[in-house]
């Protein structure tokens, strides 16, 4: 069975400091993993995706994530937080069912960035 756990419901950082949003997954086979971001009153936007190519994945806005199979993790990082990064972030695992890819979302991590 596939599942995803986001280890922190809230993360607070100061502007200019590193960001770490943690995600662990469970999958019965090689998964595809994603991070989505949701800004207030806006739709979800794909940040980055891992689909069995390079284990270090670079996304938009300076975010990146590393797939670690031994740790079943896919943590999201950014070297230096910006005020505009404040949003909710979702870790997602996908699996094929009924001939298409289904998404399973984590519960989300709300990132707050302080001046």
């Amino acid at each position, binding site marked *: 069975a596939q599942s995803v756990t986001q280890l922190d419901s809230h993360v607070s950082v100061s502007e200019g400091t590193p960001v770490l949003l943690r995600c662990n997954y469970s999958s019965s086979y090689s998964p595809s993993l994603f991070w989505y971001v949701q800004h207030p009153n806006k*739709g*979800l936007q794909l940040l980055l995706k891992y*689909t069995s190519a390079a284990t270090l994945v670079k996304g938009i806005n300076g975010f990146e994530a590393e797939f670690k199979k031994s740790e079943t993790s896919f943590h999201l990082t950014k070297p230096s937080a910006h005020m505009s990064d404040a949003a909710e972030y979702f870790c997602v695992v996908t699996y094929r069912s*009924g001939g*298409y890819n*289904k998404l399973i979302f984590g*519960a989300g991590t709300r990132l707050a960035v302080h001046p």
Partner: protein
Amino acid sequence: GAGVSQSPSNKVTEKGKDVELRCDPISGHTALYWYRQSLGQGLEFLIYFQGNSAPDKSGLPSDRFSAERTGGSVSTLTIQRTQQEDSAVYLCASSWGRSVGSYNEQFFGPGTRLTVL
């Protein structure tokens, strides 16, 4: 180009009333998904449409929920006899056709916030 649009953006209704939520997918996208996002929760899959194929309704929580997609484009999610636990944000997403092997990115609309009093 235009993204996925949803209407209304907010809907307040009384318990027991029926509501209809609308989704306009990106032009040319044949796959359409509905999700529900309850407070403090991740997204919960509701239903999936692909072209003219029978929809995957496996995520619908009860028979009060139904959805249709007319002409392979616009979709309507209907909730009958609404209950307070139906209060949530309902999100629609669309993507290019049936994915084979690789992932077809789902593009999400801004959602409809439903409040049942």
